[in-house]
């Protein structure tokens, strides 16, 4: 798997201007993009999915060019073959769990999905250990169950890459470590390359095969962590190096941080 990103975008609101200028390549199966909120992680992820249009640059997944401003290429989101997990999962509240999962494979003229799609839905419900929840509605599910349904909904279309926007932020801390293990299992089971964005160092420690640090709209670091398990000789997770890196990323002076801009707003 190879995601190549080299994009620029300027976002404007009334009193602020945010410049995104990121360039990186992801080669591993589990790539983590780390950065404080406001670093430009979400915009970058949405740009890869085709939900946000960069001003200029180029995006390619596995050699297929999805966006290239110079060549005038901008593949619409629906044709990108990219899976996306939204931060609070964005399950359709008017559809049952089964209908949610089948959504991407059911054309509008069919009242019910075809037999093979229903079969796939049943298999996915089994794999994600929620076989009895098919006719439940999203608002009846717990956070962990919602995440499983959202994963199933994205994976049923066999995407080339799965983009995950802060997948554990909506969960309570007790559940997070379990869902991280589940995500590792899912990656192993479906062999789908993932790009996860997070501001939680623990996510980096457990998940990252390659790490990308974003700050103020720039790519600060690209690190390959040589694959899982991320443990030292004594079996401890190798977080020291990462923590050093993350701490370093916070210390760099930069007058134009979004936080600084917010303060300026409050003063004026």
């Amino acid at each position: 798997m190879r995601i190549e990103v080299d994009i620029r975008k300027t976002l404007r609101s009334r009193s602020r201007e945010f410049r995104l200028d990121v360039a990186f390549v992801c080669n591993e199966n589990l790539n983590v993009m780390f950065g404080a909120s406001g670093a430009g992680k979400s915009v970058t992820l949405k740009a890869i999915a085709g939900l946000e249009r960069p001003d200029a640059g180029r995006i390619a997944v596995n050699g297929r060019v999805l966006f290239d401003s110079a060549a005038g290429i901008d593949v619409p989101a629906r044709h990108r073959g990219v899976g996306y997990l939204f931060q609070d999962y964005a399950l359709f509240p008017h559809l049952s769990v089964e209908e949610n999962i089948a959504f991407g494979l059911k054309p509008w003229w069919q009242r019910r999905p075809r037999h093979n799609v229903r079969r796939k839905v049943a298999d996915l419900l089994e794999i994600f250990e929620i076989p009895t929840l098919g006719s439940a509605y999203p608002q009846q599910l717990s956070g962990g169950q919602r995440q499983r349904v959202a994963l199933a909904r994205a994976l049923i279309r066999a995407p080339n890459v799965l983009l995950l926007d802060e997948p554990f932020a909506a969960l309570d801390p007790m559940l997070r470590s379990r869902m991280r293990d589940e995500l590792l299992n899912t990656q192993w089971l479906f062999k789908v390359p993932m790009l996860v964005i997070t501001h939680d160092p623990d996510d980096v420690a457990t998940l990252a095969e390659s790490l990308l640090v974003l700050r103020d709209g720039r790519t600060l670091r690209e690190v390959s962590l040589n694959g899982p398990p991320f443990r030292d000789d004594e079996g401890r997770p190798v977080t020291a190096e990462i923590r050093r890196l993350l701490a370093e990323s916070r210390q760099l002076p930069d007058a134009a941080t979004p936080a600084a801009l917010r303060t300026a707003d409050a003063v004026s």
Partner: protein
Amino acid sequence: MNPFSEDVLIPLFLSLKVAGWATVVAGFSGLSAAYLVAKVRFPGRELADAVLTLPMVMPPTVLGYYLLVLIGRRGVIGGWLDRELGISLVFTWQGAVVAAAVVSFPLIYKAARAAFEGVESQYEQAARVLGKSEWNVFFRVTLPLAWRGILAGMMLAFARALGEFGATLMVAGSLPGRTQTLSIAVYEAVQAGNDQVANFLVIVTSVVCVFILVASGYLLKPRYATA
């Protein structure tokens, strides 16, 4: 008196017909306008919103006057219709439909805009990433999620169209059996001292309106509240 006398039934059915068509006309135009204003950013959006809401605050007689200027036989649109197609809307039930549609348009437009804006864009983005075209996104995600608010707006618009008086009187007049709707018939009955007919018409109108308000109040209750 006989509740099924022609004095009651004819204006009642005419009102239902006019209000029904007015709701259809205002429904399509109101939904399109609301979707445009809610989802597309263009310069002058708020001004457009103000103009589209204007019929709600203007006196119906003023609206009726504007309509006469527009669709009257010598009006901009009315003149063209008369010359090219030989159609005149003034003093017809179709003219009453136009008047009622204009007056009830903002009720649908406002409700639909709020409903469309209430649909979180995440759901639409999720549908796009799952391979759906913009038409599919609208009909399978946006519209189903906004539907209850829109329906409530349409019921209010229907009730408003049913009670339309001023603009209708100016555009369509009060021709018994042709353009004399319920609310105009009430006025005529009172003027003629025909209290029995007036009483009955008033009761029928009130019952219909209460029913519509109860139903739309039920529809406006949130359904997809997150736990």
